[in-house]
């Protein structure tokens, strides 16, 4: 019993040391963690828009509008999914721009002139990346950015052309 109490004491001291050193080590980091956790979406918005910054709301397009734009061939389609999903299949003539790449200029694909219409999509109704990437593009100075909320799932299910 005495041994258990002694070892519990050692564990408690270790836990307190880990807590103290953890805070100290974090404060010495180049990019310390804030005291309150923020999810990846919040962090991206803050990085793109700045602290307290406001982000414009991109417009939305439904499937017939998107199909028409694709047939006209003037809009550039931007796939906001990760490279793996993009490689498995995407809307023809799309460029891949995952949200992680948005913040790393070296990984950005060659983007067109700022006045060109961009249509951003991701997996489907449930994913948030298309809106985040569209907001990032608006902040980068692109004027005509829309979100295709139906995304890849709707495009593929409709039997429209796909590219791999």
């Amino acid at each position, binding site marked *: 019993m005495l041994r258990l109490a002694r070892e519990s004491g050692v*564990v408690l001291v270790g836990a307190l040391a880990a807590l103290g050193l953890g805070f100290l080590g974090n404060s010495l980091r180049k990019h310390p963690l804030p005291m309150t956790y923020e999810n990846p979406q919040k962090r991206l918005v803050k990085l793109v828009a700045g602290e307290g910054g406001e982000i414009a709301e991109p417009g939305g397009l439904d499937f017939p509008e998107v199909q028409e734009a694709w047939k006209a061939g003037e809009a550039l389609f931007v796939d906001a999914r990760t490279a793996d999903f993009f490689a498995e299949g995407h809307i023809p003539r799309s460029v891949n721009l995952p949200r992680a790449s948005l913040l790393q200029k070296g990984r950005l694909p060659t983007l067109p002139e700022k006045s060109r219409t961009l249509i951003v999509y991701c997996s489907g109704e449930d994913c948030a990346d298309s809106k985040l990437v569209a907001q990032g593009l608006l902040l980068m100075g692109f004027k005509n950015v829309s979100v295709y909320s139906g995304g890849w799932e709707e495009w593929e299910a409709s039997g429209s052309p796909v590219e791999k």
Partner: protein
Amino acid sequence: MILRIFLSLVFVVAGFLKLRDPLAFADGISSFQLIPGWLVNPLAMSVPLFEIFTGMGFLARSTRGAAALAACGLSTGFVVFHLSALVRGIDVSCACFGKWELLSLPVWLGSLRAILLLVACVWACRVSPDSPTPSLKMVEESSPHAD
């Protein structure tokens, strides 16, 4: 002996990898949706160091028992987190080995891994000479009916 070295390696490596990328570990903790936001980052800062201390504790005879106790506590926590995610049907990324996690395990397999780790830690508690839980042999030897 082998078990202690194995557990020492597991905890030191897991702690070190998490320590290198606390943000990925914080995202992993948060994905379980089990603890409030204000507790996520303090845990992400301190748990990796505690794991390293635990792993190193297995190497010294005087701290072996405490290390086994701490390992049992940590692995119990891992099991609770994984099983709760399994029950609630949440898809989690445990980041148990930071972003260097080699395998993206499904939740049930992550739960199984956590349970196996807990079993190993409990076993280490029982076989350690400095263990807080005396082994069956020791109990028998100290019993007045043993002879």
